[in-house]
């Protein structure tokens, strides 16, 4: 679906444009059909540069990229893809209907099919009520939704979204998440960049992590995080004070939050012992949960640790 090979981009900076700065360094990546692919990295890691190279807005210094088997410079290939830029802005003197009609014409969609398409899209992103209001009156969340609508007007096979959740409130983020899920259900490949980790954890089949223009890791989330269960967290309530002391000696850590006890047990033997003791002494069990390293932990460990050092291989 998407093949990136040794993609490198230098920007020339300075007064005479003679000092090259490497924004993207030798990126190679494959995205498979039907995947929701998360492209992660802190600000300035090269995510937007990569997306602009894929959209033909920037020209690579070296390396190549193909989408749907065609080089990214191909204009005809863009009939089959969709793109939402970061913090999008659309002509604020247009209404959503006018904007989508304009974009639809660029794809060669003709009336009356175009009108029908525009109405159904506005319905889908929840903007049917405000279809004739000028975009200058729109909130950021609404602009983001119209941005998604314009990205999928041509029923694309691959959709590229640059930071689709940034700057949105929780409700807006959930709406964007739902659109991504529904695209996946239709078999659309979604490539999106983000630094909002919980969204990525929920949505993505595979992720790539980028730092200072270099690829840090790529693969299924489980592979990257080595989803091994580190420990179990047991939550109890109605524990007598003398039992609490006893429990503390049986596990690795104990925290009291309100009237609840949070216990951390690293072996299954500990878990069994704690549960047996607690239940025998009339404590009430709230939950037992496996503790896994989160993407956030990984992010902080991998990206944060080497912040000023050499890139990790």
């Amino acid at each position, binding site marked *: 679906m998407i093949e990136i090979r040794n993609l490198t981009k230098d920007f020339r900076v300075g007064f005479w444009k003679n000092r090259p700065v490497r924004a993207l360094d030798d990126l190679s990546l494959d995205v498979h059909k039907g995947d929701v692919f998360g492209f992660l990295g802190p600000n300035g890691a090269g995510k937007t540069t990569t997306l602009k190279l894929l959209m033909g807005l920037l020209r690579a210094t070296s390396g190549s990229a193909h989408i749907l088997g065609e080089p990214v410079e191909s204009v*005809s290939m863009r009939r089959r893809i969709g793109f939402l830029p970061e913090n999008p*802005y*659309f002509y604020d003197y247009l209404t959503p209907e006018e904007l989508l009609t304009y974009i639809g014409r660029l794809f060669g969609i003709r009336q009356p099919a175009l009108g029908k398409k525009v109405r159904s899209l506005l319905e889908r992103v929840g903007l049917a009520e405000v279809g004739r209001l000028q975009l200058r009156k729109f909130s950021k969340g609404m602009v983001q939704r119209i941005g998604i609508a314009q990205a999928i007007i041509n029923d694309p096979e691959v959709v590229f979204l640059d930071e689709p959740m940034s700057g949105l409130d929780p409700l807006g983020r959930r709406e964007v998440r739902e659109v991504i899920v529904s695209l996946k259900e239709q078999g659309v490949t979604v490539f999106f960049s983000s630094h909002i980790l919980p969204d990525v954890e929920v949505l993505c089949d595979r992720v790539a992590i980028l730092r200072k223009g270099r690829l840090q890791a790529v693969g299924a989330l489980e592979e990257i995080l080595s989803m091994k269960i580190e420990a179990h967290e047991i939550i109890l309530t109605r524990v007598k004070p003398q039992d609490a002391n006893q429990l503390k000696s049986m596990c690795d850590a104990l925290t009291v939050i309100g009237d609840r006890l949070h216990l951390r047990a690293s072996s299954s033997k500990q878990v069994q012992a704690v549960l047996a003791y607690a239940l025998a002494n009339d404590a009430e069990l709230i939950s037992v949960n496996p503790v896994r390293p989160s993407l956030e932990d990984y992010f902080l460990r991998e990206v944060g640790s080497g912040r000023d050092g050499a890139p990790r291989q």
Partner: protein
Amino acid sequence: MGRRGSDVPMRILAIARNTFRENIRDKILYNLILFALIMILSSIALGQLTLGLESKMIIDLGLTSVSVFGTLIAIFIGISLVYKEMEKRTVYVLLAKPVHRWEFIVGKYLGLLFTLLVNVVIMTFGIVLTLLYQGSSGPATFVRLLPAAWVIYLSLALTTALALVFSTFSTPALSALFTLFLWIIGHFNADLLQFATLTQSATVGWVAKTLYYALPNFSNFTILDSRNIIQSAAHAQPMDASAILWITAYGLVYCGGLVTVAIVVFSRRDFK
């Protein structure tokens, strides 16, 4: 897939239509047109001072207003439209669609041309209404306006093409400066040729001559066939059809060249 070729005009027209729409929803444009119409109307008062020459005065002042305010509008819309698309990053959305970069520039230019055409038509109509109000002019007077209005329109098309070229790589303020600079030089172009014949140095002569032919010759649009176009309309002297054809061809070729330059610059651009 076979329809792909036929989509090119559809895309260009869609871009042109949106450019026109952006212009007509911009309030500054209305202010400029309003000013021009006020100028045209004020020629009634000035006409009172020139006994028996009222209609000449109206046409003279009216067409000058069309030219001056038209040029302001041409520079104003030419410098900002492409730049604005880059600055506000709407160009990212458009170029990620199946749109060639040359189609974008051609669409933008056509949208500008149509905006200017509507402006010139509105302002010329203002002159006609003023003449009707003044009462001493017949249909022949209105016909006299047309060649002059057309030549003014050509000069505006050239001005906005210059602004378009600059706006593909420069900020609006600098583009306005460059365009105005070339517009002024273009009006004194004939001096360059005279300089070329007078100078002793062959090299300087050659440079001056090259500049004369390379720079846009705006004086062609005011003095045609050694007669001032606006004066000719005012004094009811008919224009030579071949001269009009010649200046039309000159304008088309020069505008075509400028749009090509804009396309080349725009196609090589990185959008950071």
